[in-house]
């Protein structure tokens, strides 16, 4: 989390410095053309299942890193494909009387969302910043492994879900740019099982993600 904040700060500083030192550069893609950019992103994921995550991990947020491909399409449309990962480490626990009792057995959750997003970009000729909104669906693979687990004790789930997102990209220099976005996701039944989430009737593996992304490609 701290590293993500540092990264965000550094990126914002870079954007500010770049905006101050360089004149605006025109987008290089022809209006109405197709442009492809690759991106890497990092940020934080705050899971909706607050109580369940806090019981095991003492917090409901984790660092999310990923990357993908963003395709700008005619008519201001775009499509993204993204793969990311959130990994959290905590302690297995037991709930009783509204309290959490931890057992000192390490527990690691890894969530890998694979998402496809489509939406609209508010591109204007000559503008360096491009806002966008979109939505899509994805597959969310959750894997939970504890210390001393045997193979049959590892939880593996893959669940479908959907998301909405919005953000803005800023072209910095030649093919490089930076962006920031917020995503809200809903992954019903992503936490179904026999664990603490089930005890607390939390089934949603979705959350709110805030992240920055670095882009490289044709603008």
């Amino acid at each position, binding site marked *: 989390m701290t590293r993500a904040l540092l990264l965000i700060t550094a990126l914002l500083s870079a954007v500010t410095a770049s905006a101050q030192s360089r004149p605006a550069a025109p987008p290089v893609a022809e209006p109405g053309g197709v442009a492809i950019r690759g991106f890497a992103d990092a940020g934080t994921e705050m899971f909706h299942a607050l109580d*369940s*995550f806090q*019981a*095991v*991990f003492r917090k409901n947020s984790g660092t999310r890193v990923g990357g993908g491909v963003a395709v700008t399409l005619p008519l201001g449309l775009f499509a993204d494909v993204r793969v990311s990962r959130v990994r959290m480490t905590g302690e*297995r*626990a*037991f*709930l*009783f*009387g509204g309290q959490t*009792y*931890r*057992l*000192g*057995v390490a*527990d690691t*959750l890894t969530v890998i969302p694979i998402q496809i997003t489509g939406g609209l970009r508010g591109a204007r000729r000559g503008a360096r910043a491009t806002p966008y909104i979109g939505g899509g669906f994805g597959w969310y693979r*959750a894997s*939970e492994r*504890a*210390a*001393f687990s*045997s193979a049959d*004790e*590892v*939880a593996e*789930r893959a669940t479908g879900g959907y998301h909405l997102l919005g953000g803005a990209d800023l072209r910095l220099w030649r093919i490089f740019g930076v962006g920031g976005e917020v995503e809200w996701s809903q992954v019903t039944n992503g*936490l*179904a*099982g*026999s*664990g*603490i*989430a*089930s*005890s607390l009737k939390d089934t949603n593996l979705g959350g709110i993600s805030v992240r920055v992304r670095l882009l490289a490609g044709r603008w």
Partner: protein
Amino acid sequence: MNRRHALTAAAVLVSAAALLSGQEPGAPAFLPASGLPAIDRGLREWDAPRPPGGARAVSRPDAPDDSRLNGSLIVRFRDEATPDTRTRSLSLIHGTSTAQPAWADFEIVALPPGEDPESAAATMAARSDVAYAQPRYRVHKMFVPNDPLYSRQWNFPALDMERTWDINRGASSKIVVAVLDTGMAFRNATVRFTGRALFPFPALGPVEVPFAAAPELGGAERFVAPRDFIWNTDAPFDMEGHGTHIAGTIGQVTNNASGVAGMAFNVRLMPIKVLDGDWDAVFNSPNVATDDLVARAIRYAADNGAHVLNLSVGREGGPAPAVRAAIEYAVAHGVFVVVAAGNEFESGNLPNRFADFARDVPGMVAVGGTGRTNQRAFYSNTGSYVELVAPGGDMRRGGTTAGILQQTYDQDVVDRFFLSRFGPPRFDVFVYDYYQGSSMAAPHVAGFAALLMQQGITNPAVIEALMEATATDLGTPGRDNEYGYGLINPRAALRGMGLIK
């Protein structure tokens, strides 16, 4: 040529063939099948002694500390590593690459004598052309006690204790388990008694009775605040063997290459004598076991630092409010209380009055007994107060060896109540003996509670809830009067719950 000459010639020929074929020294030479059948010597009466610890009987010169092999390393070079970079990397540790073994994506790198595999591995792992490097750590089986008679203790594998001990290796000396019973063979002494006449046995007069600490219960440091409520002393000598057997199930010294194992083998034990036996009667003890004595002993245990209390005792008859109040006192002071459900199923199934209020006291459990097949033992009481079951043994279904094996007195020198050989007993001769009863089931739960305490769950009510939530349901689905919530599942409880599973 006689048979001996023929065999010698065959051996010489096979040896020569092995040499000519360049077979490595030490590789097995497979001789032609001789046609002789295998020898079956049947079951041994007693297991032969085994080497101590997880340790081996012999020590390899290339692995003196038994944890890793010296003289070699596992290295996985990255695919993009070139022969030049590999050579440069290997030169840093003076290593020599050998052929990649079959079914491996790594290679074994030979190290010169004296090269430390740990530091060599660290050096290699830091190289950009190396994906990973590690010493050749030796692999061992998961914790299985090496006590030679452990193989006769079906009760621990039935509870998946081997994998449980991987999570918690028998608790620690911070946890104290009080055993309120017939006393315990906890120290050596010779005690002079006067044996009075009790029909039909004549008076023994003054006798010197030897006592000894059970070898498998450990040294004096294991015992905390011993107390005898039958004789009003601080020397609760066991004059039956019941309490010593129960103490063994809780905390028998384990993995010492001797005898048998116990559930929570690192705890300390608090021996408290609240039951009198025949010899206590012959020697004219000032007290006999009564509710008030048991109630006082429970409070004594709570006030003297017990974390878990095992009561493999009880009675039928009227309610026991004094004992109930004492148990509630103990639970309120953070003591988890385990009570045997009783053995009266075939005698009217009268409830054990020390157990029949267990459902109303969170932090106290009543425990029934099961046999080898996880079925309720023939003797084990049923009723709404039964909350959990644990192995208590069922010799009717499985014979003697279906009982619970622990060390206790040799009854041949204790139980001398035959007119022909009536004489003073000895309490310094031990055997490993099979007992059965809910008395034997309860200490499994007491040991289990000690493991949970060690794991950080100290609230008795939470311990009970966790035990019940993780029990393996038996009998009618859900809680029932035969098995309660089911057979204890220590591993599931000690693992707790994750987010999803």
